[in-house]
């Protein structure tokens, strides 16, 4: 069981979290091409190694950003959505 760190609540066990998708999959403009829309809807990079992701901490309801390594399973502390970058 992994330990993730919610930027609001601190380190918590994995069952309290829900995966929210890859960071940076921005919603295209309403008049975008079908290809751009399909890219947004269906395509993911699914990286081996370093990954930037969105996670939801279920008890507090906050989404946040997290750097995770899909090979070593290390997870850096989460960052609030508003924080840069």
């Amino acid at each position, binding site marked *: *069981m*992994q330990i993730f760190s919610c930027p609001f609540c601190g380190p918590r066990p994995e069952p309290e979290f829900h995966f929210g998708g890859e960071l940076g999959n921005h*919603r295209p403009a*309403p008049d975008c091409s079908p290809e751009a829309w399909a890219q947004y809807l269906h395509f993911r990079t699914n990286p081996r190694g370093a990954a930037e992701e969105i996670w939801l901490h279920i008890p507090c309801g906050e*989404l946040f950003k997290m750097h995770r390594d899909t090979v070593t399973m290390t997870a850096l502390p989460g960052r609030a959505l508003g924080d840069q970058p």
Partner: protein
Amino acid sequence: MTARRLPEGGEVDRSRPLSFTFDGRPVQGFHGDTLASALLASGERVLGRSFKYRRPRGIWGAGTEEPNVYADATDGPRFHPNLRVTLEPARDGLDLRSANSSPSARADRLGFLDLFARFLPSAFYYKTFFWPNWHVYEPAIRRMAGLGRIKPSSAPLPDGDQRNHHCDTVVVGAGPVGIAAALGLSRSGESVVLVDDGSRIGGSLLFRSARIDGMPGANWLAAAEADLRQLGVTVLTRTTAFGIYDHGLIALNQRRDDGPDRLWRVRPRRIVLAAGAVERPLPFAANDLPGVMSAEAALGYLRRQAVLPGLRIVVATNNSSTDEVAAAMTAAGAEVTVVDARQGRRVARALGRRMVTGVVLEDGTRIPCDCVLVSGGFTATVHLHAQAKGRLRWDDARLSFVPEAPVAGLVTVGAAAGHFALAEALAALPETLGLPDVPVADSAPYDITPLWPRPGQPGRVWIDLQHDVTAKDVELAARENMVSVEHLKRYTTLGMATDQGKTSNLAGMALMGALTGRSIPEVGTTTYRPPFAPVPYTSLAGPRGGSRMNPVRRLACEARHREIGASLGDYGGWLRPAHYGSDDSAILAEAKLARAAVGLFDASPLGKIEVIGPDAAAFLDFIHYNTVSTLKPGQCRYGFILAESGVVYDDGVLVRLDDHRFVVSCSSAHVAGVHGLLEEWRQDRFPAARIAIHDATAETATLTVSGPKARATLAAAGIDADLSDTAFPHMTTRWHGSGEAALRLTRVSFTGDRSYEVSVRQDLAPPLWDRLAAAARAEGGGPIGIEALMILRAEKGFIVIGKDTDGMTRPMDLGVSGPMKAKKVDFLGRRSLFTDEAQRADRNQLVGLLPADGFGPLPVGAHGIDLSGTTPRSIGYITSSHPGAALDHPVALGLIERGAERHGQEITLHHLGQRRRATLCPPCFLDPKGERLHA
């Protein structure tokens, strides 16, 4: 039979006898026995049957590695399958049954299987039972295969117990090296947990002679136990560290006398693996006969439980560890012959049918005996290191894989690191653990010569006792090119089940290497995965389960529903009245009552999510398919929420309470999903501080009054609001009363009849229910369950998302295309509605269907079929089907290709081999003009 208990010695307490039964026969033992030692002392040799050939088997080992003997135990009302007899203390009154035999290990009904062994090679099952279908053979094979039984009639095992724990260091294995590590780390200020799967700590010190710090091993151990207590080290015996998981979690299973197993989830800063090593068998023909035992295990039984395994003993070995074994057996009165491969002497085969009666050496010498103690060297127990993704290195001097280097957070010491001599193991501690001061031991160096199975060795040489894999099976795998170690494992099942390669792997790899011209490290090892040893499901599950795993949500008025005989069922996680009374003919009667007079329905699970704040209207314009911001306070609007794919995700009525406050009502099973979706977009796309979202579902009860007498029922219940159509028109909401007891009245309809939803703080709902129920009865109506509501809504053509829609349904497929064409602002899923796929003309669309063949209601799930091509083609399916309540015929809804333009056409349906005919029609069967809403 010649194994027997010595009159004195050992740690058993002869003043405390006990007895239990094994396959119906009584077994005597003493306090301090394990089940295995008591069974051995009883002289019984055949204690199990092998997994595949049902060969008679006896005890091989003394710990987790035991591959042969398991037993199902009946302990009063409880039943424990697959008890590990080598690890369980003997207990008075247990009733044991050998786990892999019927009716008993001694007389196994399937023992004849062994006579057919040459017809049962590896992969026999895959090759033979392939035709026509594995499932034809599976039940009989399953009855024969496997370990243990399930006894559903026995009392359920108590819930497992679970602990979470943090400490500096977990030391796995409490032999002399583990104890020395725990003492040293504890003295340096660390909090330490020391675990061992035996019932006492001490490891090899409990049965091997040693000198540590100048004193006998037993004295050093007694002093160390006192020191551990004084230092406050947490010592867990009968506890197996079975797995290492992400982020340094180590899982321990503790077997307890006074309760169910306890699972420990420990997060230490460091794990010290001192798990020791497991003795390997030697390859000779019939090396599986009862009476052939691990020499190390036999020494343990002799010194700990005073059980002498035989009177004429052959010690067959390739290493120095058996020197002490042979001496001890001789001292205990046995006649011992040593066959040592280091001196060029090897056993060729064991003699005997049901137990060993002698051995024949490779030089032809015949030695009669009643017991063969075997040591093929030791395999370091590196499972946890490998689970933690640590790499292994082949040590050619010690003939074992050992950890190549420590992994982060885990360091391996002692025999688990390949230090099979105690002096060497302790001497390595200062460097590996950074300890200044460790005990010093005198011990002989470890000396071993290779003795692996050779290709073409005559007879049946067993490699894996637990899964009945012989050297010939490995040779067959090599011939069929299953030469990768992972293929070898899957093809022959070598190293599977609880053995996990503890006793069997190396011999298999060595033989595969010899057959393919590779060295053992070139063959490599299979992947190590948790658990190291079997763990009961009760332990893993802990107290979670049943209603604690998935608690049902309860209505505030549940007691009222029960009083009038409601049949309650789980609907979307809520316990709700399906209908009233036990007879489901009540469903149609309730629906007719609601059409004729009035029905009272508990709609409390309906989602009520409040969206509040200055940006709430703009936010909901984005969330909803329909335009929300044009609603005036007090108005309601039915609409959809789409997923970004354009598929309808949920529907419901949106209520605007005032400029900055809305209630999103959603399907009762969808509340968590819609709430999550709202939060996601609020946080990701909008100024989060200008919108607040609050799920008020649980705190608000909603009672719905529907039917021509709905208005009269409200008035009769004392709700003295102005209910005239001008003051309170359809699709509006208003407050009645003030303060905590205020009612919110909402005039919306899911039945097609005049309806009012009355919402109130949930704890105030039961008295409101009483007033409304009495009033409804006085008006000729009464309570209705959710099944009647389903009839009413289907007659009117109102859909249920997820039932009348699927993962392809866009709003225009439901006949709602206005917002797509006219809405000015962007919204969730909008772009998807303009894709080529969404705009196809041949999409499945919502239609009504009426039976055209006089055979009664159409079956849900029946497919419409197009018969114009060479093969029938599905053109959609029926989603809902109900008898009529106001109507005198059944009705159905469905998603049918081009359905909207085919009203009036007849189609053919196919269902479970039957053909039906149905006429397509608009998806609204009752009152298309909506006059009943105002009746």
